[in-house]
């Protein structure tokens, strides 16, 4: 067997070019006559726009909404019940709806010159009251952002049956409100687009820093009204995505349109200020939760209201309803819960359009559920891990149909929690906590969070959601080269996940060929089979399945040739280690390939002439998804004067099924956790009452740095999914889910002696101090506060 198959921590093929500064990101592309684009963006959140003033000499290089009116407004539709369609114009013409919305595109021979032009364009506005708060948005007196919407509600969803008996009889009933701040996604490389007209191919070529090249091609065709074969989309190296680059953005349409019209290469590279302001677009949820339990903390019922602050527009193709649908479906979490009711609303405000950031709504839903479990535990005066454990779905109940109809496929959730508990010394920490309380040192807190994550979302689930353009299956092209190597072509895009390595590992596993002889090509619509792209922790399951299927088919084809050449019946041959064997005789893939390509006369005339290149496909037979799961524990200290939080220890116990490359799996988990730490402690774009974002640089938008995070300790179990090829589950997003919950549970654990708690992230010093003020304590809160 090749040692580079599934389960091997093979070093990544992609590392070399990056470590030598030889990668090619969109910003590294150069084309003759290329011009740079700078956008004029709205400086106000909600305003009527007056006719702009443009200097005569700039007229040929400034394009406003009238100049691009041939671009159809972006409309994200779908068959989502309760969702109302609205239009997102690529440039605002009459009314601006958020700070950062595009008003004009300006061209120059460098970005600096394009910005000089942009500075000379003058827009005047009649300002309207801005809606900054999602709760105020639904007030009947609030101004309307879209005339089509009632009370600014894009989407309303109600799930579950009422449970009046539980409501009346449950011995414990608690109500809490939770909030997650608006965040920016912050891949280190911003978005970027280079668009040009290729006369030879008769195609508009759009290089974009995107996770989903084929999807962008669909979108460009739909809104530019071009045939799909007039468009090629290429995603070269992409510097992180995390969902930010998984959708169609107005800049792609504008650049594509102008390059087509002007027949000149155009480039736009998002700068950090644009990203943090116009791109402050995720995570902002509010949860109102009432939980019903017994005196031991057993969950009896959950009543939830979810409000998603969607910003001003609905994004394409997933729509703005994606967060709410997911939150509503996963709020019951990994728990046995029979009674659940939820009302979710997706609300328009004058902020950038919400989109799915790593793990979409799950960090929010997990935050609400896990804080509620801890609140329940505090109420019944038991250790939170015990209450959590008793409520978790037991392994005997797998596969388990959740109250919202999700089929949790496999896994021992309680074992996950037990391993996490075993990784820390809870008794020792409890003793230290008491000692610290008395002696005035920083407070100590311990917090747990457990979640289950729906990965590899496939056809039937997506159809249920009603989202368009996401078929939930996948294809991959695989070719045996004449010298016995392998070419894999896939329509997804790898931008840190290491799929140039892991997809090669899948082929290596099936074909018995070393990964060094396997090449993966991705990210170019001209070269790869159709795919909706990289998102939702789907690629390893779906593309991995498609690659394996293609390899199986190739083995079948080669078997016929080998049987003829080896003078055996096909079923007498055993395929192993990259060769067909019969007794002592064997023939390698390379030998067969050589004959198929170069000496076909040696094969019988009726031999399949399709050669050694196939498109394989994959859709799991049971396509309800593979549920990965994890328990996180945070141990932290809170400074008594400044209420700053210092993470002292962080543990994660993950089960993502069979791991293709454990080194890469660890990397995905670690990266996700640190993003989750950002959500939990630092990252926030606040808005003032006029809708102005208050963070526009990395000095006021804090991304976790190397010194802010502890060495994270990872543990794992490997429970194969019964539903996917190889038993793989997705892992790309999971790490980001639990840190807000685990960390705030730890903060509340530390604050428990003072009777204070918080229910918001980021758990900034200001929020912690406010919680203490609410119970009559100020900075320097001392041991005396404990009762």
């Amino acid at each position, binding site marked *: 067997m090749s040692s580079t198959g599934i389960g091997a921590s093979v070093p990544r093929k992609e*590392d070399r070019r990056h*470590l*030598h500064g030889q990668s*090619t990101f969109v910003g590294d592309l*150069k084309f003759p006559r290329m011009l740079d684009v700078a956008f004029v963006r709205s400086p106000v959140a909600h305003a009527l726009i007056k006719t702009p003033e443009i200097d005569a000499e700039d007229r040929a290089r400034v394009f406003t909404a009238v100049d691009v009116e041939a671009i159809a407004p972006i409309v994200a539709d779908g068959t989502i019940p309760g969702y109302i369609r609205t239009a997102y114009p690529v440039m605002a013409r009459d009314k601006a709806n958020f700070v950062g919305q595009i008003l004009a595109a300006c061209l120059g021979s460098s970005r600096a010159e394009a910005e000089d032009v942009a500075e000379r364009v003058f827009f005047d506005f009649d300002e309207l009251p801005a809606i900054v708060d999602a709760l105020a948005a639904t007030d009947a007196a609030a101004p309307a952002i879209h005339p089509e919407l009632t009370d600014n509600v894009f989407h309303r969803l109600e799930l579950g049956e009422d449970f009046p008996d539980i409501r009346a009889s449950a011995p414990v009933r608690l109500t809490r409100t939770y909030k997650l701040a608006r965040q920016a996604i912050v891949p*280190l490389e911003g978005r970027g687009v280079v668009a040009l007209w290729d006369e030879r191919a008769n195609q508009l070529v759009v290089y974009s820093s995107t996770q989903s090249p084929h999807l962008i091609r669909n979108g460009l065709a739909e809104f530019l009204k071009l045939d799909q074969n007039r468009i090629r989309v290429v995603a070269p190296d*992409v510097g992180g995505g995390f969902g930010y680059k998984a959708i169609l953005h107005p800049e792609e349409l504008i650049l594509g349109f102008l390059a087509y019209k002007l027949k000149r290469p155009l480039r736009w590279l998002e700068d950090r200020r644009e990203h943090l302001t116009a791109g402050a677009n995720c995570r902002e949820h509010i949860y109102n939760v009432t939980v019903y339990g017994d005196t031991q903390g057993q969950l009896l019922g959950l009543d939830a209201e979810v409000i998603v602050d969607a910003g001003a527009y609905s994004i394409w193709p997933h729509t703005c309803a994606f967060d709410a649908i997911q939150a509503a479906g996963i709020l019951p979490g990994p728990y046995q819960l029979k009674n659940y009711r939820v009302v979710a609303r997706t609300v328009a405000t004058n902020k950038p359009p919400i989109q799915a950031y790593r793990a979409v709504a799950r960090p929010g839903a997990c935050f609400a559920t896990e804080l509620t479990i801890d609140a329940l535990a505090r109420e019944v005066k038991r250790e939170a891990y015990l209450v959590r454990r008793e409520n978790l779905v037991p392994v005997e109940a797998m596969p388990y149909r959740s109250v919202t109809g999700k089929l949790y496929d496999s896994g021992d959730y309680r074992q996950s929690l037990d391993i996490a508990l075993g990784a820390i010394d809870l008794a020792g920490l409890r003793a230290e906590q008491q000692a610290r309380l008395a002696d005035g040192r920083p407070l100590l807190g311990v917090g747990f969070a457990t979640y289950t994550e729906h990965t590899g979302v496939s056809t039937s689930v997506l159809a249920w959601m009603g989202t368009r353009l996401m078929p939930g299956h996948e294809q991959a092209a695989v070719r045996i080269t004449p010298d016995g190597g392998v070419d894999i072509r896939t329509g997804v895009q790898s931008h840190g*996940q290491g799929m140039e390595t892991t997809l090669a590992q899948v082929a290596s596993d099936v074909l018995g060929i070393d990964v060094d002889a396997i090449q993966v090509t991705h990210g170019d619509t001209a070269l790869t089979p159709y795919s909706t792209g990289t998102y939702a922790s789907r690629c390893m399951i779906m593309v991995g399945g498609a690659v394996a299927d293609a390899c199986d088919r190739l083995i079948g084809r080669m078997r016929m040739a080998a049987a003829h050449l080896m003078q055996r019946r096909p079923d007498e041959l055993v395929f192993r280690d990259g060769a067909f064997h019969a007794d002592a005789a064997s023939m390698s893939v390379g030998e067969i390939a050589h004959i198929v390509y170069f000496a076909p006369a040696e094969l019988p005339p009726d031999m399949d002439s399709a050669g050694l290149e196939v498109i394989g496909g994959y859709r799991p037979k049971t396509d309800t998804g593979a549920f990965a799961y994890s328990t996180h524990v945070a141990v932290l200290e809170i400074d008594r004067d400044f209420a700053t939080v210092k993470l002292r220890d962080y543990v994660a116990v993950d089960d993502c099924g069979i791991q293709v490359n454990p080194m890469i799996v660890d*990397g995905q988990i670690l990266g996700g956790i640190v993003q989750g730490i950002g959500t939990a402690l630092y990252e926030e774009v606040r808005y003032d009452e006029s809708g102005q974002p208050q963070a526009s*640089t990395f000095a006021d938008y804090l991304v976790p740095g190397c010194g802010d995070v502890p060495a994270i300790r990872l543990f794992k179990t490997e429970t194969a999914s019964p539903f996917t090829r190889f038993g793989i589950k997705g892992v790309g997003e999971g790490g980001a889910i639990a840190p807000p919950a685990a960390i705030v549970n730890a903060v509340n654990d530390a604050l428990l002696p003072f009777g204070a708690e918080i229910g918001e992230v980021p758990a900034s010093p200001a929020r912690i101090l406010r919680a203490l003020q609410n119970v009559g304590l100020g900075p320097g809160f001392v041991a005396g506060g404990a009762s």
Partner: protein
Amino acid sequence: MIDIVLTINGERVEASIDPRLSLADFLREKLHLTGTHIGCEHGVCGACTIHLDGVSARSCITLAAACDGHDVKTIEGFEDDSTMSAIRTEFSREHALQCGYCSPGMLMTSYDLVTRFPGLDEADIRREMSGNLCRCTGYQGIVRALQNVYAMNQQQD
């Protein structure tokens, strides 16, 4: 326009430039040395880190004009450097990169640490590397890679 003469990766470069041009843009746009990346253009993320007269510096907030007469080294200038080669090997072994966008800056800062500050421990490394942001890796692989390099250097001493 002003004229400058400087050394870049050991080669003499003469150029006539706009006084407002940043060193990062000069390297990337005029010299096509695109290994130096841009992540913020305000001096926080470290993606644009280069060496100016042998010490790490941020090319996004350094004016090209101010580099007249100076020595600049970028990630492209370390192809035959054994120390950088060792750092690269450990970065790959410890999975210290995912998308790779931060990597050139990380390597340039790492090289500066390893060559100028011997004997750093994990806490030192975390503090010293905190001027380079990575959104993908969670830093653990980067810290481990540097710990390995320090351990190797110690053995050699």
